[in-house]
């Protein structure tokens, strides 16, 4: 019969010697290895007192950015949703009314914007797809929870706070080319 896996071993039934029969050397050998591990470098940290250093481009919880004047950047174009391999993003668009120019950057905005964090695989494709630099992943971790419903994050959680001190800096996530492009104020994209 053909072997089921490549790893199968032929078991030998050979008689054990006296030293093997008393087991003690094998037990001591095992304990020696355990003892050795006490003195090696630990691979774990005492979270939450100690946290690990995060990469600047760590892919954690999303943020919906505002522009410098505090207007929402997202225009509900749906490109993040179509790029998302997990189909985690849904949104409903609405038209900006006269007088709301200080709230929304474009004529159209997302009145609801939801990401299902249970579906999200944190691939960052939404960030890559966004033409308006509206959605970014951040270093923040998505918290654990007991109810499934609490993982559908709406605009209340995702939107960047207006408070200038609480703004989220994403410039480290952008490539040098993008940062260079953004300096060009002749481009309508970069105005304000």
């Amino acid at each position, binding site marked *: 019969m053909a072997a089921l896996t490549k790893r199968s071993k032929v078991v030998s039934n050979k008689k054990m010697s006296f030293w093997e029969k008393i087991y003690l050397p094998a037990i001591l050998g095992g304990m020696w290895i355990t003892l050795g591990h006490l003195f090696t470098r630990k691979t774990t940290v005492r979270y939450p007192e100690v946290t690990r250093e995060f990469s600047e481009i760590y892919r954690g919880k999303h943020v919906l950015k505002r522009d410098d004047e505090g207007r929402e950047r997202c*225009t509900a*174009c749906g490109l993040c949703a*179509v790029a998302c391999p997990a*189909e985690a993003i849904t949104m409903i*668009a609405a038209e900006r009314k006269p007088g709301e120019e200080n709230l929304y950057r474009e*004529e*159209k905005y997302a009145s609801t914007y939801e990401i299902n964090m249970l579906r999200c695989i944190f691939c960052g494709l939404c960030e890559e797809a966004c*033409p*308006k630099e509206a959605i970014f992943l951040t270093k923040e971790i998505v918290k654990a929870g007991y109810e499934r419903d609490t993982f559908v994050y709406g605009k209340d959680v995702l939107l960047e706070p207006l408070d200038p001190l609480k703004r989220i800096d994403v410039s480290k996530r952008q490539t040098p080319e993008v940062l260079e492009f953004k300096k060009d104020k002749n481009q309508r994209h970069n105005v304000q």
Partner: protein
Amino acid sequence: MFKITIDNILIEVEEGTTILQAARMIGGKVVPPAMCYYTGLKGSGGKCRSCLVKVAKGSAKDPRPMPKLVASCSTPVQDGMVVENTTSAEVQEARKGVVEFLLINHPLDCPVCDQAGECDLQDLSYGFGMEETNTREPRREYPVVDIGPLIKLHMNRCIHCYRCVLAAEQLTKKRAHGMLYRGDTMEISTFIQTAIDNDFSGNMIDVCPVGALTDKTFRFKSRVWFLNPMNAHRECSKCSGKVTAWMFGNEIYRITGRKDQFGEVEEFICNECRFEKKDINDWVIDGPRKIKRQSVISSNHYEELKKGSIIHPIEGTTEPQE
């Protein structure tokens, strides 16, 4: 019958056919893009120049090449004509120039535009456009206006193809809108806000190759790639009642004409079908429409793969890879 060669493919066509129509009979890559020509509208074509081709041999009798690139939508074929489209670097280069000019005043606000995903100009720019712009001047800007209660006009996005004016003239009894001014200040107007209330005025939305004329009842409702286009029909006293229903679950988000592979509607539909019948019970749904796999509309629409079909053969192999 005339024999004509387009991109080294020989085809026999009727006398009086245009080069564009002959190319469409061959189909595939040799078909030049057309932004202003529309088969169903008399007098359309010859305005956008995106369908330029090179005529390397005028005809069997007079084999001299034509001195300049010609607009294939308005040039009739001659017997023995040799046409180059994709095989001519000159044509490709010229088309890049045409696209640059079409985009010179275009806002390219596709993320906001309701036409995105089914826009001829997007396809054309994607194929031939530059990544950067050569102009620094501000683009012309017009306010967004309502043409009647059902249609929204974004003059910023208009490329002056004239299709809507011809549609209004030929499909409706009284034309209520036309072009004003000239050059880059040209503007579509409804002759001082005369609302268009013709039974067939909604077809202007379908013939507009860009997002200049859009359906107000669908404005910002969804993006085309989130919807499922379905063939649907109903008994209608004014038109054939054969439409495409763009559905999300059991809801109809919008109704359009049935567009063929060249983006032209098979039959013009009336406003009642287009704007008023948004309930699923008004329609008999015939089934999903075939979408090109390259189109963004086909994304996330799952279709069963046929067993054994090779989707992306890896170079140098003949076996499907696991």
